[in-house]
């Protein structure tokens, strides 16, 4: 039956509009990045609303907060290529694998799919020499996205979740800033597509399906166990999950890419990745070292039971460069994230 369905689909496509040209793998792998996004043919329309064949959408259980931007994510693999499952860290992706992430704003954050404006589309391309990060910034007409290596500032106005106008000074990162987050021991690497962060459902053709199972089924992934046997990051916004799991997931997604032993903030000794199990390294009663005024006059990164005297929360609540964390990727405060971490810190047994 399935074969028949596939055959039918192919016939239908042949009978309909001319089949779009496939993703331009040679352009993805070329030494020089294309000046505009369309050259890769990752999408079949100039506005990048329709993904080309070979792109599979995915979502993370707990993603990074990026100034309320909506993000759509796709994985492209060269025809016949597969990613290899790993229980920890990102999967082993073959050369040619490309992660495509578009940052976008709806006019009203309460209606995430209406009047959506694309801001930038980022590519992480796995070349033979390693991963390369590229950022393409969309024009106002939403017809073309051009390469911006030096970063940019873009003014965005939205209606926030409380119905109030919100001005966002959106920062497109420069190439090196991509690496500040996407760095493992100084080498550029993806962050998101790990087993634990993909171990959740996504709607494919309207029907929810576990992503690990789906990737396996359609031949993108080898070696994955059944989803229930794979590690899983909590969904930070799902109130049904344990508070500590949600908070640790949030800290992992928003801080752990930098605050880990191989990340840019390794010298801080504060490690917020999910794998860290030493409470002292997670910030419990940890004194600031090079935090400067970021410490806000407080003594500990985490003062259990006391969100008001924990540096971690102080830096999440700030919008001031030199104080705020993360240093990059946001200009406004993630109020929901702050509320979650405050509740978590409050829930920890006080030691004083």
């Amino acid at each position, binding site marked *: 039956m399935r074969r028949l369905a596939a055959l039918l689909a192919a016939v239908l496509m042949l009978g309909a509009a001319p089949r779009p040209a496939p993703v331009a793998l040679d352009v993805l792998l070329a030494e020089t990045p294309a000046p505009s996004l369309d050259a890769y043919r990752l999408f079949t329309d100039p506005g990048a609303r329709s993904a080309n064949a070979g792109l599979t959408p995915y979502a993370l259980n707990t993603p990074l907060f990026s100034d309320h931007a909506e993000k759509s994510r796709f994985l492209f693999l060269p025809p016949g290529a597969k990613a290899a499952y790993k229980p920890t860290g990102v999967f082993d992706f073959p050369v040619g694998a490309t992660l495509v992430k578009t940052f976008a704003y709806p006019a009203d954050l309460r209606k995430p799919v209406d009047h959506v404006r694309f801001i930038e589309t980022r590519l992480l391309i796995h070349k033979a020499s390693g991963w390369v990060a590229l950022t393409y910034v969309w024009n106002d007409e939403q017809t073309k996205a051009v390469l911006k290596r030096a970063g940019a500032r873009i003014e965005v106005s939205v209606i926030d979740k409380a119905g109030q106008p919100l001005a966002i000074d959106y920062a497109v990162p420069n190439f090196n800033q991509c690496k500040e987050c996407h760095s493992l021991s100084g080498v550029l690497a993806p962050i998101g597509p790990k087993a634990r962060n993909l171990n959740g459902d996504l709607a494919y053709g309207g029907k929810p399906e576990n992503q690990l199972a789906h990737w396996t089924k359609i031949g993108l992934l080898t070696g994955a166990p059944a989803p229930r046997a794979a590690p899983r990051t909590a969904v930070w916004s799902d109130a049904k999950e344990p508070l500590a799991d949600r908070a640790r997931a949030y800290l992992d997604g928003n801080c752990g890419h930098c605050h880990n032993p191989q990340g840019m903030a390794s010298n801080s000794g504060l490690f917020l990745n999910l794998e860290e199990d030493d409470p002292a390294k997670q910030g419990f009663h940890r004194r600031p070292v090079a935090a400067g005024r970021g410490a806000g*006059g407080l003594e500990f990164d985490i003062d259990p039971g006391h969100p008001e005297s924990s540096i971690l929360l102080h830096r999440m609540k700030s919008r001031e460069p030199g104080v705020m964390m993360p240093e990059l990727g946001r200009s406004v405060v993630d109020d929901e994230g702050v509320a979650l971490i405050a509740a978590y810190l409050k829930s920890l047994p006080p030691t004083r």
Partner: protein
Amino acid sequence: MAYSNATIWGAALAAVLLASTAQAKTLDVAAGPDAQERLQTALLDAKPGDVVSLGAGKFDFTDGLSLDVDNVTVAGAGQGKTILSFAGQKSAGEGLLVTSDGVTIRDLTMQDTKGDGVKSKGADRISFVALTVEWTGGPKETNGAYGVYPVASTNVLIDKVTVRGASDAGIYVGQSKNIIVRNSRAEFNVAGIEIENSTDADVHDNVATHNTGGILVFDLPGLPVMGGHSTRIYGNQVVDNDTANFAPKGNIVAAVPMGVGVMLMANRDVHVFDNDISGNQTSAVMLIAFSRSFDDKAYNPLPRDIVVRDNRLGRNGWLPSLPGGKMLAQAMGGSVPPVLWDGITSYPGIEGPAPRLYLKDGPVLNLNLAKPGAVETAKPSVTPSLGTPGLPERAAVVLPAGQDKPAS
């Protein structure tokens, strides 16, 4: 199809020729509109061996800059001539971040970064030469923490640098090794020059003045790199450190008393000699244990293997910024002895012999504290000197050939 040997040799030869004939370029960037994008693009475009040359004038930035290409020099037209202003900075933790090897930053001024001034992380052969990093509003708690900030770096040269107004340390070398800090000036910072959790440093011929504390050598617990040792501090002017501590509360340096010349805390093998140390109201040289709680078993909180000799000590210690300091000074005839040691000789859980000290430049005030930081338990005693000579001193720090060359 297999390639013939000739083809392979041809390709290899071509590659070698290309590499050797590739000319180092100079990428010129002038002041003016869009400086952020133009300079950042140059920092991305630069190839190893290139110079990114900044013209005279003021450059205004809205975000941090970063360099991740090896063997690049970023050079301005001179301190005070090329001015990089970060007064309008909206993001990033520093003005300029360097994450590549063999980089030199020279001949320019950086002003008013929101966080640190110029930082290198994980860089080998990093040189900061003839730079000024300053906060133009004077000493303020809201100033950035560090002016020049190499961390987790190896082969560090800081030469002819001036830093003013850092709310932590002007020149701060952390978790690094093989370091020279020389011919530099640190003023109006909380700590003038600080070597922390680092190994093999020569700090010489600098001026540290009008800071809260002049030159600090510390080791802190709970960091990926600990057990700092082997620092020589010599030939420096450590004078008139008289700025009230303006560090944000809670920071380690917020505990530095105003008017300390040289402060050594929880570090090993530090030699302080041939310096001019005067005008520091708390102490010329102060040796103390780390006194906050810690639960890092690998950490030793005591200063040990310390030599203080042959310095030229002027007036110091007339009003120690310590609890009871005024009384102490009065009781001791107007000022406390220039060299102060907290007297901690052991720490629970730390094995090994008592700290070896040779404090020749006396008199020495030993507070004989019962435990680190417990000033209320002091049983002060004064001796003309303390300890005996003979502690070995590290040889001069040598940087790799090519890094430490005279200015062209």
